[in-house]
């Protein structure tokens, strides 16, 4: 059974229909890269997956649990689906370690000492062990994003969503964040990433999904998709980004 199963997902903002029926199944351990033009609905789709947006129609299932409606509390949802944002969104008044410990302590009610152990572990994983007492403003963008990844991981989610995790970064800082994501992929973390890093999509993902005008226009293994696009839209898109 698929870990994430999305059926006929629709979402409109007022008159504007942004998602026009998305179907997608993601297996545990799979890395799915979502590509597509700006405005094609990629962010909205990810945001529906963790209910930052509420969809109008269709179902989202996580393993055997319906994730929409009232069947899952926000606290439960956050332990299933983690999210990394383009703009990091670290809490500026909290040190690195406190950023990471906050949700486990407050939402999961993990004892502080245990939460600290978990936080140190995930911070080591993203290579930020030596900065645990720094404040976000003292870190580079790449470092902030790695802390944001650690913060999401601390809730031990089953799937991690990344919305253009490297788009706000200076070019020289992109690599360190992509390496962390690649390591997670190798460890078997289920990842759904919206990305403009085509090389990364090609090298790391198991499947690439091309979104166009609110629909999944084409999807498949990266090699096939990038070398033999089936639709003119995808061919055009690939030509425009490489």
């Amino acid at each position, binding site marked *: 059974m698929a870990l994430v199963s999305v059926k006929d997902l629709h979402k409109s903002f007022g008159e504007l229909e942004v998602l026009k029926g998305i179907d997608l199944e993601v297996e545990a351990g799979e890395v799915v890269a979502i590509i597509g033009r700006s405005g094609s609905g990629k962010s909205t789709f990810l945001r529906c997956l*963790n209910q*930052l947006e509420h969809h109008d129609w269709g179902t989202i299932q996580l393993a055997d649990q319906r994730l929409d409606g009232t069947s899952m*509390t*926000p*606290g*439960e*949802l*956050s*332990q299933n689906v*983690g*999210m990394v*944002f383009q*703009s990091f*969104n*670290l*809490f*500026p*008044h*909290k*040190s690195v370690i406190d950023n990471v410990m*906050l*949700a486990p302590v*407050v*939402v*999961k009610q993990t004892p502080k000492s245990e939460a600290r152990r978990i936080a140190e572990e995930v911070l080591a994983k993203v290579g930020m062990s030596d900065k645990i007492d*720094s*404040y*976000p*403003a*003292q870190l580079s963008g790449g470092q902030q994003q790695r802390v*944001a990844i650690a*913060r*999401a991981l601390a*809730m031990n989610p089953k799937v991690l969503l990344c919305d253009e995790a490297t788009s706000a970064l200076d070019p020289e800082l992109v690599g360190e964040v992509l390496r962390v994501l690649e390591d997670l992929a190798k460890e078997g973390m289920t990842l759904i990433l919206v990305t403009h890093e085509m090389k990364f999509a090609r090298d790391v993902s198991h499947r690439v999904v091309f979104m166009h005008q609110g629909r999944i226009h084409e999807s498949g293994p990266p090699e096939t998709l990038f070398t033999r696009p089936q639709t003119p839209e995808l061919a055009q898109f690939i030509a425009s980004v490489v």
Partner: protein
Amino acid sequence: MTLDFSSLLPYTDQILEGLVTTVWLTVVTTVAGIALAVVVAYVRDGARVRGASLVSRLLGGYVEVIRNTPFIVQLFFLFFGLPALGVPISATVAALIAMILNLGAYTAEILRAGIESTTRGQHEAARALGLSRLQSFRHVVLVPAFSRVYPSLISQCIIVMLGSAVVSQISVFDLTYAANFIQSRNFRGFEVYLVVTAIYLLLAVGLRLVFEFVGRRLFAFRQGGSA
């Protein structure tokens, strides 16, 4: 005219008593008023997510009434108005309540500006981590909001401390009451009010220093860069 401060010496006790009253009224008002403001701001912030509730409208009304009427009238309303309705109230309690309600309303409005400038990204990060609205308010929104409006908050607390002089009008034995009392006995108005003015000035400076000390600890995160 010659200055004669020795004429004040017999009244040291009165000045001290007035000073102690002014200080404790200020301390209690500052703590309780800010706490009240946080609660009011939280409830009113709820309108952002689920529309204005009856309670948040009522609190909005409270804030507007306080901010658009004279403090002395608010004080008289409590002290003379409530007993007329059959609710007995002492001068000190009336003074304290009036001051807390006053600071609470102004601070709630100051704080609202700080809360409203919380970015969408902060709210979304908190939600994605599973924090409820209250948890998010407490752990994510509040401290940065305070840090953004802290200078206005300090000024407001000083205004309320200085404004507390008005409570002498209902015979609360504060610093101003002590001054009036002494002046009516020794007729040394210049000396008395000079000394009391100096004390208020020192209190204002002291209050600001305390706030700045607390702020440096609470908002240490700002020193690393622009946050």
